């Protein structure tokens, strides 16, 4: 028996997650074999290729927003998690403090330095290898120490002194003293070996945000330290995460099921963010149609959904008596609106491609594991 094929309307209905005043319905996806009697739903690559869509809403170097339409939540979530935790970046890992007489304690200072996002030539960062840490339980040969291909050396040397040129009644410590505030821009990069070629000019390793305040000092205080940056992943420590935020939300879906007209329409529009609901005059044709609910309202304003994308799904409209049964809120199950905000080392859209690459590698590794299992 050939499998049953559900109608387009039925498929569309299954895509919507219902959002009611107190409950959320129809949450899990059902497009897998064995759920709907007689229907196939076997996963097929060409079918996926036909249905899958990517739409870019915004693509700035440090913030990208795009929609992935037609994939399962598991895959979308895998991308999100990989973005946060498994794409390697460079961060300060070891701090060698020669002198620190500022009020901020050594370990706190080291922790602050570690969290500073760095940037450098992407080519160079991709060229770099992992730094193998010496294992805590002493077995096996000690890994090779820091080299030009696994460690980036940076220095921070600052001493606070009085500024003799300052006005007598000056109260701003930044003018009264030299180096009263130590910023991320005071960190200097000391290239070693081949790093000279990879990280030169524009691609030199530097903090993404030069104005991060690291410490405040007063005359006579001094900071003199060396930092070793290594590659790591966000799963190890958040400082290695290449994204500030990587999140997705489902596309909101608003259905006006019965006409909302006149003052009600204005109130209805106010229940949503600007631009989501528009007001349009009722046409004579609509008013003439029997049972449309518009009879005798020609020329009055009616509420229409203009752009559900910007809706926050606050459910405000469900609180009001006059809209009861007239509107149905929902979300589209397989329309994921991603928002990826890079910390600055990579561009946001490149980050997503990296995430795809990582997932591919993981799949290949798993496949290899399976063949080993069979052998």
């Amino acid at each position, binding site marked *: 028996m050939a499998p049953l094929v559900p109608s387009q309307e039925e498929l569309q209905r299954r895509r919507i997650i219902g959002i009611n005043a107190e409950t959320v319905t129809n949450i899990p996806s059902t497009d897998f074999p064995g759920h709907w009697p007689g229907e196939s739903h076997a996963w097929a690559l060409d079918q996926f290729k036909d249905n899958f869509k990517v739409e870019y809403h915004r693509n700035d170097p440090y913030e990208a927003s795009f929609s992935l339409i037609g994939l399962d939540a598991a895959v979308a979530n895998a991308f999100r998690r990989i973005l946060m935790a498994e794409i390697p970046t460079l961060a300060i*890992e070891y701090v*060698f*403090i020669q002198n620190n007489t500022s009020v901020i304690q*050594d370990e706190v200072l*080291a922790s602050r330095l*570690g969290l500073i996002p760095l940037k450098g030539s992407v080519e160079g960062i991709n060229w770099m290898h992992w730094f193998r840490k010496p294992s805590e339980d002493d077995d096996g040969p000690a890994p090779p120490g820091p080299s030009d291909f696994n460690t980036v050396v940076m220095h921070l040397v600052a001493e606070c002194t009085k500024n003799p040129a300052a006005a007598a009644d000056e109260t701003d410590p930044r003018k009264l003293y030299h180096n009263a505030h130590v910023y991320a821009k005071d960190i200097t990069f000391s290239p070693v070996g081949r790093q000279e070629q990879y990280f030169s000019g524009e691609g030199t390793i530097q903090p993404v945000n030069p104005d991060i305040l690291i410490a405040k000092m007063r005359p006579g205080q001094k900071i003199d330290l060396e930092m070793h940056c290594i590659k790591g992943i966000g799963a190890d420590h958040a400082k290695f995460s290449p994204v500030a935020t990587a999140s997705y939300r489902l596309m909101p879906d608003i259905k006006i099921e019965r006409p909302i007209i006149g003052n009600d329409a204005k109130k209805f529009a106010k229940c949503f963010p600007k631009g989501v609901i528009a007001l349009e005059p009722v046409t004579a044709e609509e008013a003439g149609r029997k049972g449309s609910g518009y009879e005798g309202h020609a020329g009055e304003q009616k509420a229409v959904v203009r752009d559900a994308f910007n809706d926050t799904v606050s459910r405000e409209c469900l609180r009001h008596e006059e809209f009861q049964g007239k509107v149905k809120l929902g979300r589209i199950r397989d329309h994921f609106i991603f928002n990826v905000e890079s910390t600055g080392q990579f561009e946001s859209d490149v980050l997503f491609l990296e995430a795809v690459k990582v997932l591919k590698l993981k799949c290949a590794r798993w496949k290899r594991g399976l063949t080993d299992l069979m052998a």
Partner: protein
Amino acid sequence: MSREAYQVPSMGGQSGFGNEGGFSSMAVDSPSVVYLCGECSARVPLKRGDQIRCKDCGHRVLYKERTKRMVQFEAR
């Protein structure tokens, strides 16, 4: 059960418990250590047996200087 009596460790024949006579004889060759005044942040070199007092302001609270050695931290 006889136990050996506890021997006070001796330093060059002198008693470990410093009496003034012991100090003064050592003060000649003992190195001076620099301290920081708690009041005026002046550097105060002190030798063994010196009065604990800032030479500039007479304040009696002195602090040790930070170690000159490198200290390593993990930035975590």
